[in-house]
């Protein structure tokens, strides 16, 4: 009988999490470049800051939902 070894995650979940975080890295990089362009080249700093904050709030909420969905997957 094999000993009961503690495994925090399954291989499937690890691969899924890896793919998810790679996608999120791409998302973050694109978002930062877009926000940088807006803040750097936009004529109205106030408008740029408002749009950037709004975007950050929305994307943070969506990210939280996505992480919740990822953790909700059971293998």
């Amino acid at each position, binding site marked *: 009988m094999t000993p009961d070894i503690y495994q925090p995650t399954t291989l499937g979940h690890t691969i899924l999490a890896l793919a*998810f975080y790679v*996608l999120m890295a791409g*998302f973050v990089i*694109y*978002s930062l*470049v*877009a*926000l940088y*362009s*807006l803040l750097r*080249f*936009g*004529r109205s700093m106030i408008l740029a800051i408002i*749009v950037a904050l709004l*975007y950050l709030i*929305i*994307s943070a909420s*969506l*990210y939280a*939902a*996505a992480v919740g*969905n*990822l953790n*909700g*997957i*059971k293998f």
Partner: protein
Amino acid sequence: MYWPKFKRTIMFPGQQADEEVLLVVREHWLVFLTKLLAWLMFAAFLMLGDWAINVYAPVLNTAPYLGYVNLLKSIYLMFLVLGLLILWVMYYLNIQIVTNQRIVDITQRSLIHHTISELHLSRIEDVTAEVSGIFGTFLDYGNVYIQTAGETERFTFNKVPNPQRIEKMILDLYEQLPEDLRGHPHEKK
């Protein structure tokens, strides 16, 4: 009594101290709306997907698969929001500026490709306004072409509102130049 002087707004890099910005124009709102409609189509795929799952594959709404579907929808929605931001940023950062000295075309070709072209009023040879199509005619937007005296490409204001007024404005500015400067760029007398 002391009145604080407000700092003069710099509209674009390289703006001279005595340079007065007369017009800042970007593409007509309908151009953005068209892109927004394309974006909405992608947003509709999300709802279409929900409908398709309910009708054709209701099994995907049950326990083992629901998590994957929800995860995919969340990721899709995030990139959808990112797409909307990029659309708006690209629309917002593409502007044309007319000052009392020159015409500046600020083009954002991609998020990391920013171009600023400028044309001194004295180099203008010909200005043409072009309105075409049903929407262009009814909503009064079109292209303005500015032919330069030289081998450089002509300046184009793409799908800007009130092209005829912009054309007249540029020609008026050209005519206000001292006569010895017109059509003789770089020749200071």
